């Protein structure tokens, strides 16, 4: 058990403060606190110069302008060196004309990977799996996604989660399955019988007292 913990490090959970870090990146030394006040997507990839990771980096770069509109910064990570990250980013730009606009952590000593539970020994004892940590402006972890080494991430879903979290924070509502911006949102369930009865008179679209939706 101890051996597994040593290999995997701490496993953060949703709702917890994001583990602090002080990391060497392709944009210089960055600390978690440098991102305070912005949303942050911290994501790991297994290795530079690998095919699935390259498609993901192109895809992350393509959604970067949309993330900027939503006040979200991107920060990549792998256990490769800064020189490797720079060479890979330059190669991606040369071959595909896509410039990588965000910093990438060079986590050679695995300090950040272990703090965020990014190494899953059942997949690889040396590489990080494909993790996504969505961290809010107060530096609380709001979403964690893990993908296996063989499956590239879905950028639409990442954008959808950002939209959903920001809609929830702004309006105090929840979002139903497959929600997209513009769709109806879920009104929080009532806590008392009186609130349940009042709810049915409030003009919401209700399936029953516990499932009511409204337009924003």
């Amino acid at each position, binding site marked *: 058990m101890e051996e597994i913990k040593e290999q995997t490090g701490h496993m953060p959970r949703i709702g917890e403060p994001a583990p602090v870090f002080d990391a060497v990146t392709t*944009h*210089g*030394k*960055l*600390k978690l*606190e*440098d*991102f305070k*006040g*912005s949303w942050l997507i911290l994501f790991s990839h297994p290795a530079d110069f690998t095919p699935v990771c390259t498609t993901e980096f192109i895809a992350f770069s393509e959604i970067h302008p949309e993330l900027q509109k939503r006040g979200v*910064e991107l920060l990549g990570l792998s256990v490769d060196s800064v020189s490797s990250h720079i060479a890979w980013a330059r190669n991606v730009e040369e071959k595909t004309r896509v410039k990588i606009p965000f910093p990438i952590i060079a986590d050679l000593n695995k300090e950040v990977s272990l703090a965020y539970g990014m190494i899953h020994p059942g997949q690889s004892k040396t590489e990080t799996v494909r993790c996504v940590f969505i961290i809010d402006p107060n530096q609380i972890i709001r979403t964690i996604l893990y993908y296996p080494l063989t499956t590239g991430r879905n950028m639409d879903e990442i954008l959808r989660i950002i939209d959903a979290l920001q809609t929830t924070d702004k309006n105090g509502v929840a979002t139903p399955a497959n929600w997209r911006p513009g769709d109806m949102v879920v009104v929080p369930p009532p806590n008392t019988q009186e609130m349940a009865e009042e709810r049915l008179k409030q003009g919401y679209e209700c399936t029953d007292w516990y499932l009511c939706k409204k337009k924003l």
Partner: protein
Amino acid sequence: MACISPDGKPTESGSKMLRALQAGSGSPEEIANKAGLPLFRVRSGLRELTEAGLAKQKDDRYELSEDGAKLIK
């Protein structure tokens, strides 16, 4: 070093921050606006410029040091 090259000259982002500081002291947010750089880059860059003696921090505000002023002349 992201703001200062190994030859001691400021990088493009370092120059932008130094020029923003030349226009007057400011908070990281104000400097980010003036320099047109992301706030996280400015926070990290100001730490670097301060450690290098090119900027000075007073409470939450930053200003150019004498060495910083000489460097961008």
